[in-house]
Every structure is written in C-alpha cells, then in structure tokens.
C-alpha cells in the first residue's frame, strides 16, 4: 500500500455481503433463530427487524439473534436492534443475542442494550 494524496483509493477488500437474515430450524415452534449478516448496518438491520416482527406475529416466544457471522455493527444497526427488543417486549417474547464477538458486546454494553437483552458471547 502506498500513500496517496487524494483521489479514490482502490483496494481489495473482502466483500461484506448484506445477507438476508436466516431462519434456523429449531426444536420449538415458539423459538426463532435469526442470523444477522456480517455487517449490521441500516439495511441489514431493517431486514432483520422485519423478520423478527414476522416471527413474533407468528407467535414466537423467544427470538435468538445469532451474531456468529457478524463482524461489524454500526450505531444505526444497534438502534434498530432496540426496536427489535421493544417489539419483543410488546409481544411478551424474550430476546437473546447469541455468539456476539467481544467488540460487539462492548458496543452493546456502552449503549445500554445489555440491560434489556440476554447476551451470549462467542466462544472461540
């Protein structure tokens, strides 16, 4: 990598695809596991929220958001997650954030999310 004074910097970056949240097969009809994408930004967050609301409307009592594939979250994504928590609370459902990496856990802690949701950190 060389220094460049200005202009668009061309570099190769591992593509972070905005994958749609996935629904995992679960033992209980009332439990939904939804995978967050590798970069939880606004688009991914809204998609995840839509899926969570859908599952809640179908009667899910427990929403597990799996962050095993998530490397980065931004504040917009986090703010959308609070919406998920609020929606679940409104439906009387429980929310778990699973496989959260250490850095993301730190962010959730800073912004107070860990007070409202059960966090299960990733074990490497």
């Amino acid at each position, binding site marked *: 990598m060389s220094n460049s004074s*200005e202009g668009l910097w061309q570099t190769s970056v591992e593509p972070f695809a905005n994958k749609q949240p996935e629904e995992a097969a679960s033992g209980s009809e009332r439990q939904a596991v939804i995978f967050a994408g590798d970069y939880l930004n606004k688009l991914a967050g809204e998609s995840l929220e839509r899926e969570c609301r859908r599952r809640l409307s179908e009667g899910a009592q427990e929403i597990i958001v799996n962050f095993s594939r998530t490397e*980065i979250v*931004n504040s917009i994504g986090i703010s959308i997650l609070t919406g998920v928590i609020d929606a679940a609370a409104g439906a009387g459902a429980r929310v778990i954030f699973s496989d959260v990496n250490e850095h993301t856990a730190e962010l959730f802690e800073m912004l107070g999310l860990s007070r409202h949701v059960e966090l299960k950190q990733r074990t490497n």
Partner: protein
Amino acid sequence: MSTGARKEGLSRCYRDNHFIGREAVLSAAIGYLTTGSGGLALLAAPGSGASELLFRSFDRLFFVEKTVIPVYFSFAGTGSAEQLAARFIKSLITQSVAYLISDPKLLRAGISIEEALKIAPAKEAALFRGLWRFHSPKFSTVDGDAGELATLEVLSRSFDAAARANAAGLKISLLLDDVHLFARNHGQTVFESLFDSLNRNGVRFIAAGYRRFLYNASELPATAIAPLDFTDSAKATSVISNRFGYNLSDEVRDLVAEQFQGDLRLIEAFFRGANELGKSLSDFKNTQFHYVEEIFGGRCAKVIDRRLNYASSDPEEVRMVLEIASQLSESDLNALTVESAVERFGFGRKRTEKLFSRLNESEFFVTDAGKLRLPAGHSPQKDRLFARYRLEVSGENRALLLGKTVLRKIDEAPGLLAARYKAIHSLNLCGLLEDFSLRREVPEALIDYCRFAAEFKGAPDDEIIRETRNEPFISLPTIVFSTATQDIYPPIARSLAREKCAVGFGFRSNPETRSDEIWIAAEINSKTEIDREHAEFWCDRLEMAALMCDLPEYRIWLVATEGFTPDALAAMKARGAVGSSRRQAELLRRFLRGEFVQPEARADTGEHVEITIPMDENAELIAAGIVEELAKKHNYDPKSINQIKTALIEAFINAAEHSLSPDRKIYQRFDVDDRKFTVTISNRGIRLADVSPAANGSERAKRRGWGLELMRRLMDEVRIEETDDGTRIRMTKFAVNPD
C-alpha cells in the same frame, strides 16, 4: 530587471531596481498586463505610489518583457472630452510607435501625430492612420454641448481604438492613471460606461485611482496598494533623500517617515523643496522647521492642495472644509452629520453629500454612517488644513503662527517617534486574537501564567516548544474580527494606547451548541509581576468597557511583561479572567502560526495516507479495511483496531446521513505510527452543529445520535471542528503499552 544602461522610460524618479514594498504588486500587475483579459482596478491610497507602479510596469513591459505594447495614459488635467479623447489617441499611437521601432526617446519627445505616423513601421502605419482618422474626435459628428451622452460617445469612439488595434494583431495593454479624476471631470455614468465597454471588448488594462472611489465605483476585479508601513517607508525615505543629496541620520530618517505616514509623493516633495532651498536636515530642529515651511506653503502644501482640489475647487466649499477640520479637532465634537453641515453652512444637501464623499475619497476625512470625521492620528493633510484655517479663515499673523507651529512640532518630534517605537514593539493584540482561528486548541501552559510560571519560566524556547506538546490543551474561541478596544469604547484610550488593548469577537461551537465569546485583551507594561491590586485595576477597566458596550459573553485577557503574582492570578481567576506573560503571548503566537514543529510532522516512522471515498452504500468498509491494514502493520492490538474501525465507520455514516454533501465525498487522512493512530475525516455540507435534532423526538430518533457517543468512548481524543462548508472530525487512539 536589467541593471544595465540608463533607461529613458517613464519611471525617472527612482533608478534603483528595488521597488520598496511593491515588488509583489508590481509582478502581479505585469503578469496581468501580459496575460490578463479585460480590466483590473488598482485601488490606491493617495500618495502611495500608484503612478510609479504604472511607470515601472510600463518600463518593464517596454524594455524587458516585450510581449505586449504598453500604453500609459493619465486622466489628470482639465480639458473637454474632445481634448481628452484626442490626447488618448495620440498617446496610443505615439507610444505604440515608440515600442515598435524600439525608440524610448519618443516617449518624452512630445512629437506630433503626423511625425509619429511618418516614422511608424510600414506594416502598422496604415492601421495607425486609420485609427487616427476614425477614432480621433476631430472627426466626431457629435454637436457641441450635448451632455453626458455626447461625452460618452466621443470618449468611447476614442478608446475603442485600443480594441481595434488589438483586433488588428497589436497586443495593446493600457495603463490608465488617475481614473478618479476622469469620473470627477466627466461624470460617474460616463466613467462606468467607458470602462465597462473596455472590459467587454477584452482590452487589457489596469485602472489606477483613489481606492475609496474605485472600490464603490467599479465592478472590475481589484488589487490594492496601501501606504507603505513604517519599515518600508523609512527605507524609501533613505532612498529618496539620497537622490537629493541628503545622507540622513537614522533618527531624522525615522522622523520624516513617521511624519509623512508612507506618503511617497509628499516625502519626495519634502526633499525636493529642501534641496532647492539648500536646507540642512541634520537634526530634529531643522527638519521640523523645514516641515512646517513645507506645510505652510512649500511643495508639500501644493501637493496637498491639489488633492483637496479633487474634493472641491470652490472657495466657499474649501472654506467650509477648513472650518469643519478646525471644529472637529478642537471641540468635543468628533463627527459632523450632513444635516448639521447643511444647517450651518447653507449648502444644499446634495452638494454637501457630494463634498463629503469627495473628502472621504481623497482621505482628508472619513465618512462613517453619513458622518464626517477626521482620521485618527497625525498627518500632513491635517496639518495643512489647520494651517490654512488659521491663516485664511482666522486671519492669524503668518510669521507668528509659523514660529509657534515650529516650536510645537520640534517639541512633538520625540513623542512622535516614541509612539511609533512602542507600536512596533507591541504585541499586536488584534493580530494575536485573530490568530486564534488558526488552531482551536493550544497548550494551556502557553496562555495560563500559573502553569507557565510553575513549569517553564526560565526554560529556553526549544525546551518549552518540546515539552508543551505533552501538556494539557485548552480550546480557544474562533475569533472572526478584532479591533482596538478604543474603536468601540473610546474612553479606554485614556488608560491604554491603541495598540495595547484589543477586542476580539468570536464564538465557540461543539456539535450540540454554539455560543458567542468576546475576548478583551490588554497589554500591561511592568518590570515585575503584576500584583493583585494592579490586576484588579485593569480588570475593572476592561469590565467597564464590556459593560458599557453591552458585550454579553466576554473574557478578559491580561498580558503583562513579567506575568502576575499568585495572588493576582487568584483574583483574576475569580473574575473569569486569564493572565499571561509577554513571553507566553509570543510563544502562543508562534504556536498558533505553526512554528512549533508538530509531533505528526516529525513521525519518522509514521505513515500518512489520504483517501477520498464517495458516500456510497457500505463505502465506509473500504476505509475500515485500510485502517485495519495500517494498524496491524504498526502492531496495534485487535481491540484497538476494532475500536478505531468502529469510530471511523460512525464518523463516516454520520457525514453521509446528515451533511447533504454537494459532492458526496468523504475526505480521510490517516496518520499512524507506533504511538498513536489519528483519523481525520472531513466532508462538505451541513455542519454537524447545524443539524437539527430529530423533529419527532422519538426514542428511535434519539438513538440515532449514538454515533457521536461511540466515537468519544472508543477513541482517546475526539475533536470536531466546523470548517467553512462542512465538518472535520479528528480522532486519536493511543497505542496500548504492552507492558
């Protein structure tokens, strides 16, 4: 410029090559006359050397550059429009011929147009004949006294010759002097129309005239020359006096420079008059004696009276001017309104307003919100007006008045220079306050005497420069305008000289709010540390100024030569005032101007990367990737890397979401070494401080402000600055010590 054989160009006053204080504007003028298009206004203070600038430009183009044909023309002198037009055509043709046949003697020979046409090169002779035939006013078809329209037609026809010559392949550049006289003699409308026409025709020209006239009268792009500052004025005085055979002592030289305030025309008149009369200028006594003689009726008086003639040549109006000058200087009245003048002197409002305007343009007076006042300080113009009043209006005995004036001027001379030397050695508080805008944060030790005295008093400069880097920093307001405090609160002048007390109008801003902050600064001379009593004395004075001027949020800053006692500092702190020593203020100035070497610039092992990324979907991940690579390379721990990446992403999306950037780009710079990683991210658009809070106030909307909080918590230092058209966020993460 060649130092070779004696030239016969236009500039005959100063043969030396160096044009004191004017080399930069001379180069700019020549550049414009060589490659520019249309007109450039040269705004000049009276006597500041505009004509000499044009002469030198002419000579440079004629003898050295030789890429365009320079034509100099002055609008000085009376005469009808036809006479002016004829004079212009003749100048255009004769000077062009002089250039084309490389014979500078023609410039001063005063040859007739017929002679010029005879010796013109064959290739251009027909063109010149045509120009004379069709553009000369003697062939004008306009009847006699038909008003401004007729005048404009005559002059336009004449000046169009320049455009015609250009169209025929001659590259003419006009150097037009004394354009304020043109407007005065032939009307504002004619002036505006003629220069507009020249400009539209693409004729290359510089129009030099009184700055206060041209600034209001012309839409042309402009450059300005002001009277020389004291240092350059003293150099010019030496050069001019040498030309007339005088070898002045330093103190006499400085006295003359100070007396004439950089007015080169008057300085030359002074020495020319002394030379003609065989006067000695060996000491203050005989120098001041000659000065008074010059003001009473010598060459200097003639120059000043010619300038006054610009404002008015009507004896009744001139008498009015003399009375006004006397009244304003001797009474408590410091300004005169148009209404008062109309009532007192009986001239109509329009006539009085026109006179006020011309007096302002010729800088005998200053008009300020419709009021007329004398300029601050001393000047030969004022001395001449007062002398004329006492001689012509009061009818005082000339010899008696001259004697008294000489005694007074001799008595004043040392004080005149003392005031100048004090001004030179003052801190220039106005400039220092305005320098606050150069950097928002400064080491506290450079402004707080308490801290400085404890750690740095007595230390050499390089140690202070080195060690203050590690000191806590404090933020300063952005000062946008500063002025002498006596400009807003005249009574302060009784306590502090003009240059010793300044007020700076500024503001502080952060993402949440913006508040005005006004600093009132005073420089106090003292041989020892200022004690509590004296500190409170000065705080009282400045607080009074703030209260009387109704300044809402202000801070007092006292700068004392040797600083303050601890007691004084405590008292000042209780009043919210800041105290610094003179040495601190000087170091602060150096710091603000970047003369302290910044750590980033000395990072021998550091890397500096600048990138520009469009505000596209997920584009922030590109920047995050680069950050990761750089940080890994410099052995930053994974946790820090993640924190830097997240903070960067937050800054990026913040800009993308809120700025409404016109170019949709984010500019980033990464400075990284083994000690710290600094990310600077900037964008154009709505500034962060100006972004309105969410209108609906919903919880979700509030959560969207988490980005800033994350930045502050993840990084060790975050500074958010407003630029003129956007925001710059600078974030730093210090490397974790592995031990």
